[in-house]
């Protein structure tokens, strides 16, 4: 299992992370059979401090699902940035993760994008597994 990012997808995620730095960005991504072809930048609605947290509201979530139908694609997962922190999921990420989705994390250090990784929640919710991220 892994994700393949079509041309422009990684750049769009990095650009969003740079744009919102020092706050976290977030968004959804779409495609088919593990190939990501489209991203959807979404507002970070957290009330817990956007430098360290992100939240996608239920209404925005519903829009993200609707967009999948409009695109005729699957919603494969969500991305967010970790400003000045590594691209590894936190305990908070784990506690709030949903199954059967991919979570892409991009590290933004001092406004510059660095590592990008992708993760999936284990069946028993105890941890994430890192998945292979390749570029088309």
């Amino acid at each position, binding site marked *: 299992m892994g994700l393949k990012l079509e041309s422009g997808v990684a750049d769009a995620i990095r650009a969003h992370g740079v744009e919102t730095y020092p706050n*976290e960005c*977030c968004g959804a991504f779409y495609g088919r059979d593990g190939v990501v072809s489209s991203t959807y930048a979404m507002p970070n609605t*957290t009330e*817990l401090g956007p430098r*360290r*947290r*992100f*939240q*996608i*509201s*239920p209404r925005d*979530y*519903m829009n993200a*699902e609707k967009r*999948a139908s409009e695109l005729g694609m*699957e*919603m494969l997962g*969500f991305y*967010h940035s*970790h*400003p000045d*922190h590594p691209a590894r*999921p*936190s305990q*908070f*990420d784990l506690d*709030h*993760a*949903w*199954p*059967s*989705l991919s*979570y892409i994390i991009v590290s933004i250090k001092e406004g510059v994008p660095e590592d990008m990784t992708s993760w999936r929640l284990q069946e*028993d*919710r105890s941890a994430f597994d890192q998945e292979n991220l390749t570029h088309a």
Partner: protein
Amino acid sequence: MPNTIHIPTPLRPFTDKQESVEVSGATVGELLKDLTTRHDGLKKHLYTDDGRLRNFVNVYLNDEDIRYLQKEQTPVKPGDSLSIVPSVAGGVL
């Protein structure tokens, strides 16, 4: 007339890919219990170990958040529908 529960994308692998599931019960809690009885794999993603709905799980009765009704004790009428809507959240700490 049965009630239906709309299932969000990440939970559909646990409902044989169905977007909605027909359930029965007299309250929101009973409908959810019927759902997790039919599709056992959903339980750990909807409820904490002590049996409370996880705080990032939003449940709407028709279009109203059950937190502003009577939560899981909210009575339902035949034909009412529930939607499970994820709050997606995370962060560095």
